[in-house]
């Protein structure tokens, strides 16, 4: 008997929640750490709702695409809230910028010199382990375009890295 929809979702959550949580955790700043669980929950709520659309064999890149949109929305909402709240009352406790600093100063500087798009594709590959086909699923572009963009981002990163004084 084929597993029920609930069983399939159960398996998917157990399999994908660690990489999705890690993906969101890496990119959380300037949101607070306490918001991570809510973002993961929102991501899986959307996945459950669109369960029939999840591509077989490419569940992770598809889920990361959903998480990417959820994170963007959350950051936009944060920016709006930050803007308006700042006008009416003093700022409360915020996520510490120090939490977001990479220990390797050369890597940090080289990443900072990349465009947002280049940085995103490079880190999806380096930190989240996506290959060109997976990147295509996550970023909704063709595999060829993903491969070209990744290669270009890697070249730029390498160049910036070599230009940064060693620390």
């Amino acid at each position, binding site marked *: 008997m084929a597993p029920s929809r609930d069983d399939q*979702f159960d398996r998917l*959550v157990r399999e994908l*929640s*660690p990489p*999705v949580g890690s993906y969101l955790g890496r990119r959380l700043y300037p949101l607070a750490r306490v918001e991570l*669980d809510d973002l993961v929950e929102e991501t899986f709520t959307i996945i459950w709702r669109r369960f029939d659309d999840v591509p077989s064999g490419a569940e992770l890149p598809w889920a990361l695409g959903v998480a990417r949109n959820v994170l963007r929305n959350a950051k936009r909402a944060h920016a709006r809230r930050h803007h308006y709240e700042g006008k009416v009352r003093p700022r409360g406790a915020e996520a510490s910028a120090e939490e977001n600093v990479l220990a390797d100063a050369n890597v940090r500087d080289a*990443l900072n010199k990349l465009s947002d798009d280049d940085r995103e594709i490079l880190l999806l590959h380096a930190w989240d382990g996506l290959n060109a086909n997976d990147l295509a699923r996550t970023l909704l572009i063709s595999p060829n375009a993903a491969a070209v963009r990744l290669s270009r981002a890697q070249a730029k990163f390498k160049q910036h890295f070599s230009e940064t004084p060693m620390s």
Partner: protein
Amino acid sequence: MSDVFERLTAADPYAGNTFELPDVASFITRVSITSRRSSTWRRFQLGVSGAISATTLIMVGSIAALQGAAPSLPVLNFAAASTTRVNVYSSVKASTSLLPTTNVHGTTAPSTATNTQYHFMAAQSLSNANTVGPAYPLRAPRHPKTETMRIASVFGVSGVLRQLASGAAWQVSSPGAKVTFAPQGLWTWSYVNTSTSATDSVVETVPVRALALKATQLVSGLRYGYQLGTPTVAKRNVTGSGPSNSAQGFVSIHLSFPVVVSGTTTGLVSDFTFSTSGALLRAHGPAFFVASSYPYPLLSPLAGVAGLNAQQSELRSGAGPSANSPTPIEVTISNSSIALGTYRLSDGALWLVPVYTFTGKVNAKSASWSLLALDSRYTKNAALASPIANQANRY
């Protein structure tokens, strides 16, 4: 791969720090329920917008149809009683048990006559009206460490946070007090005053009302999904060493508050013990948030009485044939009340569910029986379910 990209990979701030969901079963339940509710809401919105674009008559008809439609409610599949903890503090008597709880000298004591059979009849005063009552899925505090620190700050305890040897429990202890959060079973917080001065100086008697207010303020500060009801108050003479290790005896005032969710009493309690000078000695209570409420159709009280008979037959048949089948004792159920009981579902989620308590007389003594009040279309394994309760931490 070149050194550059190795350094990039090594710079991953999440390397070796895999994200883990604290409670996968509850998470899945929450996600699927939220989605089902949102999709119902979306269907409703689409229905209304379609109606607006049509004629006024069609719009009115659509709204009327939607109002009459049954809401999409999850079927609650209860975990068997063996997987739940025994309720020692519950004020809701064993929910589906058919053993009566009789009032003897003002205390409640369960009958031990396990082979007693009853035939329940409803008094004319019992209603036949079908009503709707809310059930609530409960959400645990997400991060035990953070939660323990939060509780400690409400009780003014600042000290070292550590995980107890018992496993999941966390504790903040200072020289004068300790606060514990135990996330196993039903999540529970507790406070213990370990200062010797708290009980030694019996210099004044603080009004009980002021103590109740203090307790209520502390629980409001915890910002959980419940309020406290009217407490029962008891004074106790404690001789010898008490919680403070005081050598001499002292008097303590014990307030036991029923936990109330949206105006309905639950089977849970929050207890506070004060010295006569008003110092808080001990306290404990449940720790949960109420995610949302689901309006379930309930059995009418009259149907509930029939349910008691049916359930008795079901349990008796499950127990196998009996050599002696005693004549059933006739009981007229004269009164019914409704409260919320805490139940664990088969997927591990905890819910507050409406429970009937029926009162009648057995041998001229008042006795009560309890039954899940949900319409049976929305329950599975209800006969096996047993409520769980918050037990005081012994840390």
